[in-house]
Structures are given as structure tokens and as C-alpha cells.
């Protein structure tokens, strides 16, 4: 196993955004079956360390590949368009307007029904954005444009996490 290979190479998958989750999961388990430290439990500390390194690498790749947002960001980065979320927060005005509306709705929501409805709206936006990303990455290979959509998706996901946190508060 080449620890320096890309996540896609490591998993033997085509380097593209669209992936079959079931195939990805099966591949992950196959790989862990080969490299997990438990498979080397009776072979001494050195074998354990090597296994641990490989197992960590497989898990790292899996975490990135299974999450559409991370997978998209990774593809952009591989093709010279890093996300740089920390330094690049410029977003279109229309997107920012929608974000503000959502934030206001979150402030005003007091029941889990209202929150569920808001969450539904966000998930709809997320699905739309993911479709755009898939088209940009796999069909037109326009990484520079795709990366902007990836940043938008990061905003949406962070907002969904805030909605979930509020749901936790209300239900506990």
C-alpha cells in the first residue's frame, strides 16, 4: 500500500465526484480487513505500528471520500483550485441574503416543527448545490467555478449544524 497515493488511487476508484456509496463502504472494509492493527495483534509492536499507520491512512481517505463536501474540496485541491476557506469568504450577494434570512428564521424558531421545516429548506438547497458541483466537476471539469459552490456548501452545512444544535437543546 502506497501511503502517498491519492485517496482515489488508494481505494482504486475513478477520480470523480460521483461515487457509489455502497461500493466505497465495501472497499473501505476490504482495506481495513487487510491493514487493521487487530489483524496483527499477535505479531509484535513493530507490525502493530505499521498496521496502525496504514489503518489511519485508510480511515483518513475514507472520511474524505464518503463526505460529498470533503470529496468535492479534495477534487478541487487535486486540480489546483484549493478551497482556502479561511482566506476566501467572498460570496455572491444573493447567497448572503439567503443566509441572513435563514439566520433570522433560526432566531425566531421556537418549536421543533419550525426547526424541522427550516432544516428541510436547507437540505433542499444542499441537494441543489451538490448537483451543481457534480456537473461542474465531472462534466465540465470547471474546478474554479466548482470551488465557489463548495464554499457555499460549507456555509449551508455549518448552518444545518446550528439548526441541529438548536434541535438538541429543544429536545433535551
Amino acid at each position: 500500500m502506497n501511503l502517498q497515493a491519492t485517496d482515489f488511487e488508494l481505494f482504486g476508484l475513478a477520480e470523480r465526484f460521483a461515487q457509489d456509496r455502497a461500493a466505497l463502504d465495501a472497499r473501505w472494509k476490504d482495506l481495513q480487513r487487510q491493514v487493521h492493527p487487530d489483524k496483527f495483534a499477535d505479531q509484535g509492536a513493530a507490525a502493530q505500528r505499521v498496521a496502525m499507520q496504514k489503518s489511519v491512512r485508510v480511515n483518513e481517505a475514507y472520511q474524505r471520500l464518503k463526505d460529498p463536501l470533503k470529496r468535492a474540496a479534495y477534487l478541487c485541491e487535486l486540480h489546483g483550485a484549493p478551497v482556502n476557506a479561511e482566506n476566501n469568504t467572498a460570496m455572491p450577494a444573493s447567497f448572503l441574503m439567503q443566509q441572513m434570512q435563514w439566520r433570522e428564521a433560526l432566531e425566531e424558531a421556537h418549536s421543533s416543527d419550525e426547526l424541522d421545516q427550516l432544516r428541510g429548506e436547507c437540505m433542499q438547497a444542499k441537494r441543489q448545490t451538490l448537483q451543481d458541483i457534480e456537473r461542474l466537476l465531472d462534466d465540465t471539469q470547471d474546478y474554479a467555478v466548482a470551488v465557489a459552490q463548495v464554499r457555499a456548501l460549507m456555509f449551508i452545512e455549518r448552518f444545518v449544524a446550528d439548526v441541529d444544535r438548536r434541535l438538541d437543546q429543544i429536545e433535551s
Partner: protein
Amino acid sequence: MALLQISEPGQTPNPHERRVAVGIDLGTTHSLVAAVRHGVAECLPDAQGQVIVPSVVRYLEGGGRQIGFEAITAGVEDPQNTIASVKRFMGRGLKDVALAGRLPYQFVDHPGMLGIQTVQGEKSPVEVSADILATLRYRAEDTFNADLYGAVITVPAYFDDAQRQATKDAAQLAGLNVLRLINEPTAAAIAYGLDNASEGVYAIYDLGGGTFDISILRLTQGVFEVVATGGDSALGGDDYDHALADWVLAQTGVSATSAADKAALKAAARACKEALTDSENVAFKAELTGAEVVFDVKRSDFEAVTQKLTDRTLQAVRKALRDARLDASEVKGVVMVGGSTRMPHIQRVVGEFFGQTPLTNLNPDEVVALGAAIQANQLAGNNPGGDLLLLDVIPLSLGLETMGGLVERIVARNETIPCARAQDFTTYIDGQTALALHVVQGERDLVADCRSLARFELRGIPPMAAGAARIRVTFTIDADGLLSVAAREQISGVEASIAVKPSYGLGDEQITRMLADSYASAEADLQARAIAEARVDADRMILATQSALDVDGDLLDADQRAAIEQLMRQVRAACDLDDAPAIEAITTMLAKDTEAFAALRMNRSIQQALSGKNIEAI
């Protein structure tokens, strides 16, 4: 069996000898050890046939310990020195222990882990746990008449790093080679054989004596993937006992203040709770100093006064399902673990929640140890064709303190282990040469609300402008779920790292002292075993001699008989002393001095056999 094995000098009797590996469930109320024998996992019983060891250790004045049932019985009279439910104190400071005020112990507060003052001085929860583990280790070694290769020890899925580390420390102190720490619910799923033909999502509802765990597992082709875990490391059967006792006190207007009264109440509540599993009505009975409490408790009363506790478990179940992004209807099966799931209303409520009858056909007390044994057998290499693979997750997020007391999350909870995560930090003052790192665990945003795991410093950063240094901090979590943290300044290559231990684990000095103590107590344990064995041999010899005298005493003259009887008295007297070599010496003398008598008896029995038979018959 050992006597029948003959091998050439220098050869092992069996080059492919199986390694003895056990699974240990170190529980809050009781512990068990199990192993795979003849292809089947089974719990190992003690000489009385009991598989359960109550997790109770009593420290006696002047040295010595009582462990298990013995400790419970004696502990009613001596609650301060009888430590029960020690698992709740593992890796915990005094402020973390709910209801510490109502426990009969003299706690000593330390940063990191509390201690308990006993007649034998202060004991760390790690030492108390090690005493329980050592008992199980001896049991396994006696069963197999062999040294242990290693053990898999189970911990609640919700245990944080400090609690896991404390558990591993205890095992090492007990002389166990820890093959792996695994989560209790995962072990339960293995025991239920959910690996064969059980593809799908399973929920493991584990309500033990002191902890509640919920785990959502996804099973595919022999792989156990923990999708989400949740729970409450301070909620269990003990709380149901307390709730019942409090309610009875409130109903009767009696109060209990002394340690003995508190212990008696707790025992009464527990007995009442257990009886309510099979009966609708049970009398709560407790003898307190100055008052006897007798109160009739209906099952519905008990359900009502513990409703809040049961609801708390369901809340955790909902949260775990949400973490797993699953609906209750998507769960294919529900496994019940822990003695507290015997309570009928728990089974009913959980069944209603998931819309199906939970699995209860394995003994809920044993199921975790059985699963651990299966995993131990595989890790020891006894089952090379085994297809079992556990892909566990980290139960709580790990992060670093940043400016303003905020937590920067590095590893999110429910991430599959082993894993490593790196994040870059920088200096914020010109010429800054050191960076303090504070590692925390928990889901909250403020450091103050999370558990502090460790602090360390990266020193020797070359002076640079603020923001110029690039410090990469790497969190590595091994397959046991234990964390180590490394920091490296990328430009200069300066490094610092820490296996997360000091602030919530034990200091080196403490470990050294405990090891010394445990060697001393291991010596004492060894002596105690030798004495017990010598007494058994002596008793056997006396019995045999006495029955010989009863049958064939007429073969001896008065002097011979008197000499033998004198020796028997000496053997009996020696048995009253705690001196194994003395007992053995006098027993041997009795055996030697009765040899002539034995020869006479043998002659007589031969003559008796011959008499009355003709030559041809011989």
C-alpha cells in the same frame, strides 16, 4: 492432566499450543471473565460455580483484602473500607462524582483522579479495579492451569480518554497484557453472533449498574461498524436503587444519616427492585439504627418514581439515532445488555420505542464478557480464519484550547479509529518562543465545559514575527481509543509530544508506588493461596488416617496408636497457624509415620481377598 503429558527435554509438549486469552467485563456492580473453550465462549466460574464477581473490594485492617461476595457480606459492617461501584470513580475527580456526599467513603480530592481513604491508607480507583482484575486473572489461570497470553477488557462506549486510560492502567497493574479495550455494546453484538447473516443496523441498549450506553452498529460481512454512540456514564441501576430508597424514605418520613444506614437502605432498595421484576408487589424492608422500615411497593410505583431515569435513557437513544442519521424504524434489531434491562418496564419502553421486541435470550450479565472472549481469542491468533473486524469510533470530540477559552475541535466524535488529524496553529506575539497546548475532550464550545485531558508546551520556537511560525499539532488515536498528541514547528523542526496521561491519568510516582504495593500484595496473595492449599492437604490426610484407624485400628498396639493420634493433633494445631511450610512439614510427617500402618492394612486386605477363594480362582 498435566501429569499425563510427557515430553522430551527441551521440547514443548505442543508447538502449536493455544494461547489462553480471556475477555473481561469490568463492570460497575459486577465483573466476569470469559474464554473460548472447545470453540465456545463461556464465563469461567469460581470454585462455588459462581461466574459473577461483585465489583466490591474491602480493605482489612492490618493488610489483606476481601473481594466479591465476601466483601459485600462483610462490607455491611464496614462500609468505609468496602469500595463498591469503583468504576464510577475511574479517571474522575471529586467534583465529577454525582451524589458523592451520600456515599459512605472518605474521598481525597486530587487534580485528575480522586482517592479513597481506607484502613490501608489511600487507594486510587485504579488500584481497586486492579484488585478485581487480579481476582479474575487468578481464576482464569487456575481454570487453564496456564499463564494468560492476554485479555480484552470492555469499557462503556461513552468512556472518555481519562476513563479508558485508567482502565488500561488498572489492567497493567493487575499483571494483564491488554490485547485491546473494546466497547461493551460492540462486545454484546459479537456475543449475539450478529456477525453471521445479520446485515443491517442494530441498537445496543446497555443499562448496567452505573452506566448507560446506547450504540448504533452497522453490520456488513463480519464488520462491526459503530455508527454512533451515546449515553450517560453516571446513570444506571444504582440510580434506580437511590430513587426508590429516596421515595420510600419520603413516604415513611424516616431519615438515614449513618454510613451503615445508607448501605442498608441501598441493599434493601436493590433487593426490592430485583423482586419487582417477577412480582407486582414487594415489601421494602430495611433495618436502620433505631427504626425498621417496612413499606409496600407496587411495580407501578417503582416505574413512576424512576420515570425520569428511564426517559433520560430514551433521550440518549434519540440523540444517538440522530447522530447516525437514522430513524428508529430503520433499526433491524435491539440487543439488551446489563442486569438493569431485566426490569420489565425497561424492556417494554424500549420495545415500544423501536416498535419491536428486544433481544434478551442471552444472559444480560454475561453477554459482554462472552463477546470480549471471542475477540480475545481472535486477537491471540487462535482463530486465524476468523473474519471478525471491529471498526470502532471515538466517543467524544477532541480538541485544543484557543484564544478566549474556546475549543478548536480537531477530531469529531464518532470518527472511526485508529485515526490521526493535524491542524496548523501559529504564534500571536512577535518573538514568541513557546506555545502552550491544552488538550480537551467534549462536545461543548467552551473549554470550561469540557474535560481537561492534558497540558503541554512546545518550547524553543525560533523568534519570528507573529503569525510566521507554522505549528502543526497532530492528534493520533489508536485502536484502543487512546490519544497521543504531537506538536511540531514546521520551519525549525522543533517538536514536543505527549501520550495523554498526566492530568487525568496517574503520575509516574503514583504508578511506581502502586506497582510496589501490588508486588507486596501479590506476595501476600501467593502466601494466602499456599496456606489454603496446605490446609486442604492436611485435612485430607487427617480424614484418611482417621477412617483407617476406625476400620483397622486393632492392627496397632496402644503406643503406636497414641503416636499417630498425637501427630494428628499436631497437624490440626498447625492448621490454625498461617504458616504453609509448617503445615506441609507436619502433614508430611504424618504421611511418613503412618506408612507402616498402611503396610499392615494392605496385608490384611490382601488376606481378606484371598481367604475364601480357591487357588484356581486366583
